[in-house]
Structures are given as structure tokens and as C-alpha cells.
């Protein structure tokens, strides 16, 4: 065997190992999804059998039919879309401004305020849940989708991401803009914002995924079934007093995840770039 052939062989073996490892992990991660997909076409009796069965027998659309028979199902989808839309819009608008201010403007206490904001990242959501609930209650915003959205309009990690992005832009561009007649506000709209498209895309996608799938918040702040979002509505609809009917929930989750999967397929370029942005410059 010539050294060249040897090298090629070694490279091929490595490629094989790499693929084997990647495929193994992909199967591990995909398993629950595949299981959900299969189970959504099974009867509950079959789906709950042990050892698990992988072929739906009998094949049934009953779960999906149950789902679409729910009177409130379209309403929940609308609620979820409204909630996610508000969160995405709020985050794109406010965190880009906040990030710009922290990155590009000079004002007293800037760094202290920013550190204080960052420390909020360390506080688990459950700590602020009760105080938030009390505030919302006093404002009369409990059981109100707008009230719930209000809580998530600004997200600290989005501010952080935007700030990092704006600090990574060249100083000279902003100085040039200043000499060309841009005050800080014009510079934001004409220079910073158009240049921040990748970061804004990342913020939008993250926030959409987070709010579309949110469960705890909607569960606690929403009370009447007609105000529920999809994740809360589904678990509510099929919870019986003693047991839960899981197969329609699974079917519902699949329907609910369709937009996020679609979004990922369309925007995965931005998502990955967003990770690069957050991970890149510290």
C-alpha cells in the first residue's frame, strides 16, 4: 500500500466513525419525535403498550379528528400566534434600541445598569413568578393575552445579543455617520438597524420559538379556556380527572410544532448565525 492510499484509507475510516457517531446521536435525538409521529396515528391503548410498538395497528386518524373537533382549537392557535407575534415585535423593537444604547451611546451609569441587567439572567424565572403574578393581578391583566405578552416584551438575553452585535460593528462607520450629519437617533435608523439584520433575525427566531412553545407562563397567567395558548389548551382539553389522554395531545403538539419546524427550515441560516454572534465575541 502506498502512503497515499494508506492516507486515503485512514481518512475514510475516520469519516465512517464520524458518521456512525453522528447518526447514532441523531437517532437518539430524533427518537421521541418519531415516536410522537407514530403514536399520533395509534389508539391510546396501543400507544401505551409495553414494550412499545412502532407500527400503528389499527391506523387511526381519530386523534387528529378529536383535535379539530375541539371548538377552541382555532382560537388557541390564534392566541398563540398573537402572543408570539407580540413577543417577537416587542423584542425586535425594544432590545435593538437598548442594545444600541448600551453599545454606542455614552451616558452615566451605563456599565452599572448593563451589569445589573445581566445579573437578571442568573435569576430563575420561578423566583419572579409570584411577584409578577401579583403585579399583573393588581393591574387587572391576569387572564389576558396582552398582559401575558407584556411580561415578555423585552428579554435580557436579546438585549445582550444586540449589544454584542452593535459593539462588534466598526467604530469608524459610526464616526463617519456622525460627520455626515447623523445624530445618535438617525445613526440608529440609517446605519445600525440595517446592519443588524442578522442579529435581529436571530432575536426574532429565538423569541418566536420560546413564546410559541411557552407553557409555564401561559399556564399560570391565563385562566379561561378561550384565552389559552395552544400548549396549555391541549393539556387542558385532554386531561381527565384520573388520567390524561395522551395521543390527541401528541397529535396536537405535532400540529403546533409545524410552524416552528417550518420556520427553522426557512431561517436556519439566521439561527446558526445568531449562535455565532452570541458565541463569537464576548
Amino acid at each position, binding site marked *: 500500500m502506498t502512503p497515499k492510499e494508506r492516507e486515503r484509507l485512514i481518512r475514510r475510516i475516520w469519516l465512517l466513525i464520524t458518521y456512525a457517531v453522528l447518526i447514532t446521536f441523531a437517532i437518539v435525538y430524533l427518537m421521541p419525535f418519531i415516536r410522537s409521529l407514530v403514536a399520533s396515528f395509534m389508539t391510546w391503548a396501543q400507544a401505551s403498550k409495553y414494550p412499545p410498538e412502532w407500527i400503528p395497528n389499527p391506523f387511526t386518524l381519530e386523534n387528529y379528528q378529536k383535535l379539530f373537533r375541539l371548538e377552541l382549537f382555532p382560537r388557541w392557535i390564534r392566541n398563540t400566534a398573537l402572543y408570539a407575534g407580540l413577543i417577537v415585535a416587542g423584542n425586535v423593537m425594544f432590545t435593538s434600541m437598548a442594545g444600541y444604547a448600551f453599545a454606542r451611546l455614552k451616558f452615566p451609569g451605563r456599565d452599572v445598569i448593563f451589569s445589573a441587567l445581566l445579573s437578571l439572567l442568573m435569576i430563575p424565572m420561578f423566583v419572579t413568578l409570584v411577584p409578577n403574578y401579583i403585579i399583573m393581578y393588581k393591574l387587572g391583566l391576569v387572564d389576558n393575552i396582552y398582559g401575558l405578552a407584556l411580561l415578555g416584551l423585552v428579554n435580557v438575553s436579546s438585549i445582550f445579543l444586540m449589544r454584542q452585535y452593535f459593539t462588534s460593528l*466598526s467604530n*469608524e*462607520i459610526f*464616526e*463617519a*455617520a*456622525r*460627520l*455626515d*450629519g*447623523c*445624530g445618535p437617533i*438617525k445613526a440608529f435608523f*440609517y*446605519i445600525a438597524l*440595517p*446592519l443588524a439584520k442578522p442579529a435581529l433575525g436571530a432575536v426574532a427566531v429565538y423569541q418566536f420559538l420560546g413564546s410559541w412553545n411557552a407553557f409555564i407562563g401561559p399556564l399560570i397567567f391565563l385562566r379561561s379556556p378561550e384565552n389559552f395558548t395552544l400548549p396549555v389548551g391541549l393539556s387542558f382539553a385532554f386531561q381527565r380527572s384520573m388520567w390524561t389522554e395522551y395521543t390527541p395531545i401528541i397529535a396536537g403538539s405535532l400540529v403546533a410544532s409545524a410552524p416552528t419546524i417550518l420556520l427553522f427550515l426557512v431561517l436556519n441560516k439566521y439561527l446558526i448565525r445568531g449562535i455565532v454572534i452570541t458565541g463569537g465575541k464576548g
Partner: protein
Amino acid sequence: MARVLLKDVTKRFGNVVAVNRLNLEVKDGEFMVLLGPSGCGKSTTLRMIAGLETPTEGEIWIGDQLVNEIDPTKRNVAMVFQSYALYPHMTVFGNIEFPLRMAGVPKGERIKRVKEVAEFLGIAELLNRKPSELSGGQQQRVALARALVREPEVFLLDEPLSNLDAKIRTQMRFELKKLLSYDLGITTIYVTHDQVEAMTMADRIAVMDRGVLQQVGTPEEIFYRPANTFVATFVGSPPMNLIEGDIVESDERVIFEGGEFSIELPKAIELRGRFILGFRPQHVEVSTEPREGFVPGKLLGVEKLGVENYGHVAYGDSEIILRLPEGMETARGEVYWRPRADRMYLFDPRSGKLVYG
């Protein structure tokens, strides 16, 4: 058009004095080069004139106006940055148009002026491209166009050629000078650390070091009458030779005792005591044969630059650089040299100031 006047301008960043009591007048239509090593305060000075930094003390005047408190936008100065700082998301047209748009110039007028300046700089066919699709030289022209379109009174350039490769740099050097001085006659302040750029482009050069202005003068004055040892060594390539020694009188002759060798000085020199003798490598007579009054030396090596060859000769710890006559035989490694009497300089060893020359 306007003159620029700096009066006792000081800039401190914390404890660091970036610019120290700078007084400088740039005349109307003059091409002034701020020259110095990095960290000498030249860029800070430029940024203060632009309004990107505020002076800690002192006054900056543009025309008849004290501009210390005036916003950069309203100073009517334009600046070209080292990185060009083009807006990457706009086309070339958008970039050039931008300052006009911000100034509220009506659209028809904007299009007309952008086209004019683009024609003038020869980038009219690039107007629809994005900056990332342009070469360095083209980006440079766009940056110039963006600065010129506003018809500024003062033009500021911060090392505008340092990102270009050597060939384009030489070409742009001349083009810039022609454009700003001969075609437009605009007051220009140009920052560089490259003494060749300074010498070739400037009407006058201001040499700075560690925040302090060392000398202001025409390229000839800076080259032939350097105010101190810093200017003498910073300007000119290779730098001026400096040797510390004593001036003594013997047999009615004035002799400079340099430790390893002695050189006869013109009789007119009345200074006695310790001084630094300076002479440029180009102002030396060199011979391969021993001659009266010539200093012998051993060549360490020769830098060949084509027409000009520079020989390095060592004396103890110090090294002297001599320009060798074209075609001189250097194989033996022995040279005899003498600085030209009319091109010798003497500096005070403590202050470094020029005392003779």
C-alpha cells in the same frame, strides 16, 4: 475654504497627555501633513478638528469661528478614515448621497451632485455596486467622493493610503495631491506616519512626537533644517547619522572627536564642548582609497536599492550609514568617508535642539 487655527490645544485621556499645548495654523488652501510615529497625537489632533474628540484645553478655530462647542456636523469638515468607513449596506450611490440626504438636500439636486462628483473621481460606472464589490483603490475613491460631495471647507484625511498596496499607494499619493491642492485648492489636513507621503504631498509638514509639536515647515525646511534630533532621524530614509562627541581646537583647526574617529569641521564653527554631530547618508563623500581628512571604515553590509546603495559601517556600538557612489566596488569592504562640510548639523546633547546647520 477656510484656515484652521489651533491655540494651546491639549487633550488628556485620564493621565495620558495625548496632545500637549499644540499651536498650529493651517492656512487657507494649504496641504498640511501631520507626521509622526504612532501614538504621537496626530490622529487625536485630527479628530479634535473633526469634532469627534473635545479638547481638554485650548481653542480650535475654523475660518472665523471658534468650533470647540460646535457639533461635528456643523463644522463643515469632511473626513476620510483609514478603513474608509463606507456603509456596507448601501450602494456606492447611497454612500455618496448619504451626507446630502442627512442635510435635507432635495432629491433631484442630490442625484445631480452625486453624479458630478462620481464623474469627477472616475467612479460613475460603480454607482450601483456595494462597497464589498470594490477594490481598495475604488473604495478609497468612494470615500473621497462621499467627503467631497458636501463641498467641505476643510478636508481631513487619516492615513488614507495605508490600506492600499504599495503600487496603488504611490499612484494615489499623486492623485490625491493633484485633486486636493491643484484642482480644488481645498484646505487639507493629512495624517500619516509615512515620511515619504509627507515629503511628497505636503505644502507644509508638522512633525509631532509624544503629543508635542516638534517642527512645522516646508518639506525642504524639515529635511534640510531639522529642528532637533527627533525630526532629523524621523524624516529622511535612511535616517540621519548622529554621533555624540567633543568639539576641540588643535593647530587652528576645529576637530570633532567622536571616540572612534575624528572629523574636521568648518572653521566657522565657534562652538566648543560636547555636541551631537549629524549628517545624512546622502551628504557624504565616499572613496575606496585613503584620502586626506577621510575616516576609514569597514563595511558591515550593503543595502542595494538599485541606483542607490547604502553601506553600513560600525564604530564601537554605533553604526553609520553612507550612500555609496553608483557602481562603487565594495568587495574589499574598506571605505573612506567624510561628511560634506555644508551639510553638517550640530545638536545640543541634552535638549536635542539644532544649534548649527
